């Protein structure tokens, strides 16, 4: 069994144009944790995730992920439009199956199951230009889920979705997570969303991003994504994080 803990040690990222996106960021995410990352726009959240995914090299510092750096245990949901325009929805989801060596029937079953989960079964044969922005984002979520990889890196995955769909996907994500205990890093601008989902919330400062605070979320699992919002402790935590974010902006 691989150790799917992730360690980021004093990682700094300076781009070629001189922009420093991350400044000495350190965090350790234990295996099976659901971690959320909050922070102002442009503070380096995406950069941090790309470094973890191996799509970007840190300028200095160290990143430790399992699997000798091949990272075939990590699935990424990108912030921007990322599904291939030349593939049908079904084929796009099947991109997540690379390296799994499933036979045709099994692959089809996995893709159908994931499309069902994100409510796109009737669009399986459509091309991306026939979908809305939120539907495209759901395809890329289905692609990540289909991969069955044990670490999920999600960059504002639900940002483009309406509130009802979002809440539906929150409970699906939690259901999957509670069953499989994947390690999840979930970037978001939604404070409530992060409290509903995460075990632990990292708050980052404005650029160059540093970790300003780390908040434990005490609510028991399994959680009810709607009922939880009525809990007075939920409101207090949201307010506390709101305060931390304001501090982080000023820091």
């Amino acid at each position, binding site marked *: 069994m691989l150790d799917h803990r992730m360690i980021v040690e004093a990682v700094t990222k300076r781009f070629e144009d001189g922009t420093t996106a991350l400044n000495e960021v350190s965090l350790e995410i234990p295996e099976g944790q659901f971690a959320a990352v909050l922070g102002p726009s442009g503070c380096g959240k995406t950069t941090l995730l*790309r470094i973890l*995914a*191996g*799509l970007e090299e840190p300028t200095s510092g160290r990143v430790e992920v399992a699997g000798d750096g091949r*990272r*075939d245990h*990590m*699935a*990424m949901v*990108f912030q*921007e*439009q*990322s*599904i*291939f*325009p*030349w*593939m049908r929805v079904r084929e796009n989801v099947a*991109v*997540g199956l*690379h*390296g799994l060596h499933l036979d045709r029937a099994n692959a089809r079953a996995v893709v159908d199951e994931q499309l069902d989960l994100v409510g796109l079964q009737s669009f399986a044969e459509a*091309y*991306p*230009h026939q979908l809305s922005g939120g539907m495209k984002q759901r395809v890329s979520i289905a*692609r990540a889920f289909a*991969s069955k990889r044990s670490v999920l890196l999600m960059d504002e995955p639900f940002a483009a979705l309406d509130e009802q769909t979002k809440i539906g996907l929150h409970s699906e994500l939690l259901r999957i997570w509670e069953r499989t205990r994947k390690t999840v890093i979930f970037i978001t601008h939604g404070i409530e969303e992060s409290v509903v989902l995460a075990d632990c919330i990292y708050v980052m400062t404005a650029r160059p991003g540093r970790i300003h605070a780390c908040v434990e979320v005490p609510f028991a699992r399994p959680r009810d994504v709607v009922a939880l919002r009525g809990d007075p402790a939920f409101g207090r935590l949201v307010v506390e994080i709101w305060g931390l974010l304001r501090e982080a902006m000023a820091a």
Partner: protein
Amino acid sequence: MNGTWEAQVRRARRLRSMERMLRLASPIALLLLWECAVRVRVLDARFFPAPSSVVAAALGLARTGELWGDLRVTLLRLVLGFFAGAVPGIALGMLMGLSRWVRAVASPLIAALYPIPKIAVLPLIILIFGLGDLSKIVTVAIGVFFIMAINTSAGVLQIDRIYLDVAKAYGVRGPSYVREVLLPGALPSLLTGAKVSLGIALILVVAAEFLAAKDGLGYLIWNGWQTLQVEQMYVGLVIVAVIGYVVTIGLEEAERLALPWLPR
């Protein structure tokens, strides 16, 4: 004012079929105009014989079998030359798109060699490959090769970075990377290259036949001119034009089928 959905779809279809009709009708209209202009002597029949007399000359040439023979060799040279140039051109273009090192080596060479008129090196090509079919095929292939290499590498380079990141993140490598990401991503630009280079190929094959052949449509045109059989010259010219037209229309239809994912 929008009407029902059915009405709108019908309207969109009607517009599309009208567009296709116009494509067919415009050359026919030109021919009719030409015929009339010769009949009323606005055009001099010695230089611009009427389409009807060109058709008569064509029928004569067809009856002797001369026309079919010339058409066959020209098409053969065109098709063989096109594939002989396109396949290595696409391969080099892919490699250039993939590797900055290949690009650094190949792009200055292409920039220098591409603008050399291929007809200017025909004497050299004939010296090496002889007076037969091979020298024409090579001339066409050289012209096609550069255009396909340039268009393919440009096509690969303009693939949005995010798609390369997705491929990397999900372990899409090797042959599946080429088949699922690079080729489809570069296909629009590749097909544009195919259209342009088929036009150039047609020009090259006819020009090469002008200068160094005893058959083919280029020879037919040249021979018609030298023996002052102007109608025969026009037969050759019109057939070349028809080939160009059919090839372009065919490729546009092929494009429609090959790129169902492009919004239109």
